[in-house]
């Protein structure tokens, strides 16, 4: 049977992709609109980008969000990878079901529930032990919690497909289990580690609902500032900001995608060479 999609299927696929991308393309186009009125094309201009560069509120929020994202995704990478190792390598231990449940649940838990419950925890903890007060710390903790779930899912499937006999061979040759893991398995799962760190970073950078609940009075993240402006209607400097973010993320994902594919091909070639 031919492995080609029929013209009808292909058309539907193209329409679906157009649906996904058209709004973003239009947004980027309009960010260069000289007119402040969204419906009128007033000629090409980079005016809103210049305006954006002088907006202290947005720049401050962006700095805070980048800081949160960098710390939270790094924390999530460590915890999520440990959880993945535990779930893949240790088939039997007390609390395994609990861990696997807690790793999978944040993926489908409505953010608003996670946000509200975490806020109630932080408030109760502050009352009981005097820590943590709402702000940067609580946002980072909340982000680590949901990002680590994504890290575990990504690393877990990669780790499960990694060949354990290579690690055993290294141990036969005198490596400690830790050495064997670092020298043999870590390079194999490295692409999954990189992509899950990046995914955590973007998820953290994008989070509005959970951050709104757990943040403090003076810690507004970028999505919170964007949301409060967008709720009032279209604003041209948000168009410019959105275009910048979409473009930067798009380019980063493309580069990461190409790198991961190249690493993958390299690994397959190496394996073929080793087998031959």
């Amino acid at each position, binding site marked *: 049977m031919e492995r080609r999609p029929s013209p009808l299927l292909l058309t539907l696929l193209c329409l679906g992709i157009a649906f996904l991308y058209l709004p973003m393309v239009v947004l980027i186009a309009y960010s260069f609109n000289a007119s402040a009125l969204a419906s009128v094309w007033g000629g090409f201009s980079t005016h809103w980008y210049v305006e954006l560069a002088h907006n202290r509120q947005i720049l401050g929020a962006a700095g805070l969000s980048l800081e949160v994202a960098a710390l939270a995704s790094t924390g999530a990478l460590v915890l999520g990878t440990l959880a993945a190792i535990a779930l893949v390598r240790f088939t039997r231990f007390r609390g395994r079901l609990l861990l696997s449940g*807690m790793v999978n649940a944040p993926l489908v838990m409505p953010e608003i529930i996670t946000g509200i419950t975490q806020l109630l925890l932080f408030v109760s903890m502050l009352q009981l032990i005097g820590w943590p007060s709402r702000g940067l710390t609580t946002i980072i903790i909340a982000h680590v919690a949901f990002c680590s779930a994504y890290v575990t899912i990504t690393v877990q499937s990669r780790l499960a497909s990694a060949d354990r006999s290579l690690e055993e061979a290294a141990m036969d040759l005198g490596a400690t289990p830790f050495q064997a893991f670092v020298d043999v398995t870590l390079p194999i799962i490295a692409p999954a580690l990189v992509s899950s760190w990046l995914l955590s970073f973007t998820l953290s950078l994008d989070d509005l609902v959970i951050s709104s609940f757990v943040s403090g009075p003076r810690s507004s993240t970028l999505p919170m500032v964007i949301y409060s402006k967008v709720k009032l209607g279209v604003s041209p400097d948000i168009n410019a900001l959105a275009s910048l973010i979409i473009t930067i993320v798009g380019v980063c994902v493309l580069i990461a995608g190409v790198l991961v594919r190249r690493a993958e091909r390299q690994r397959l070639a190496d394996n073929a060479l080793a087998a031959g």
Partner: protein
Amino acid sequence: MIDRAPDGPQPPRGLAHWVDRHGRWLIILPPLLFLLVFFLIPFGFALKISFAEAALRIPPFSDVVSVSPDHKLHVVLSLANYKYLLTDEVYAVSYLYSIRTAFFSTLLCLLIGYPMAYAMARSSKAMQGILMLIIILPFWTSFLLRVYALEGIIRDQGLLNTVLLWLGVIKEPLKIMRTTFAVYLGIVYSYLPFMVLPLYATLEKLDQTLLEAASDLGSRPWQAFIDVTLPLSMPGIIAGSMLVFIPAVGEYVIPALLGGPDNLMIGRVLWDEFFSNHDWPVAAAVAIAFLVLLAGPIALHQHYRVRQLEH
């Protein structure tokens, strides 16, 4: 060490010995404890506070558990919040409305996503990689900004109306913003990748020889699709539907930005209860009741995920 047989294995001692025997707990405990404290235990606190009463203090609720000066433990559970949920009909109405909205958006996602996933699975291997990237890319892009971008298309003076007016198809701008349709459109637009990817994963693994067998036995292509492909892609359909349905029920941003005042989804009610009314105990009760209602779909999702991982 002295009377050790020269070629016998050296018994590990001290810290090394402990790490050897219990080392795995060094790996298991950090994520287990972190998620326990910061993900699971919060639900316990929410449950506790849902039995409290709103109070004018910081934090704004009464103590459920307190110790009086004569060292007696007092537990005061108030069911008033849950009674309130049952008596004020805004909660029941918004629960039902959220479930209906999520259901129809999921159905739309499935109808649009299935052909896309099917076309992807039938493309060449090189093409599949590229298409994967194209479908995943929006998922990486800011959710909030994508909803905002969609608003640019469907606004009264948005691209859609401008083009349709210019073409003369319509005389007056279509009213899409602040309608139920806009909420559907927003959910489909935001969650479509979540539907396509699991569908693609199952369809891609589908054994083509089964379809060939069906066609050899005289099945027409669409009949083979109904009898073979559709049942076999059920795990993907369920996984994708749950990934869209569950978050869509609790969606806040989409109804708040694209919907009108009638589009009262439970996420919005919860948000307002919290940020506008400052009634934390009622908000906690809404969240707990919401979670109980979602337990079924979440369990279904977990069940299929675990099965998927084991195969």
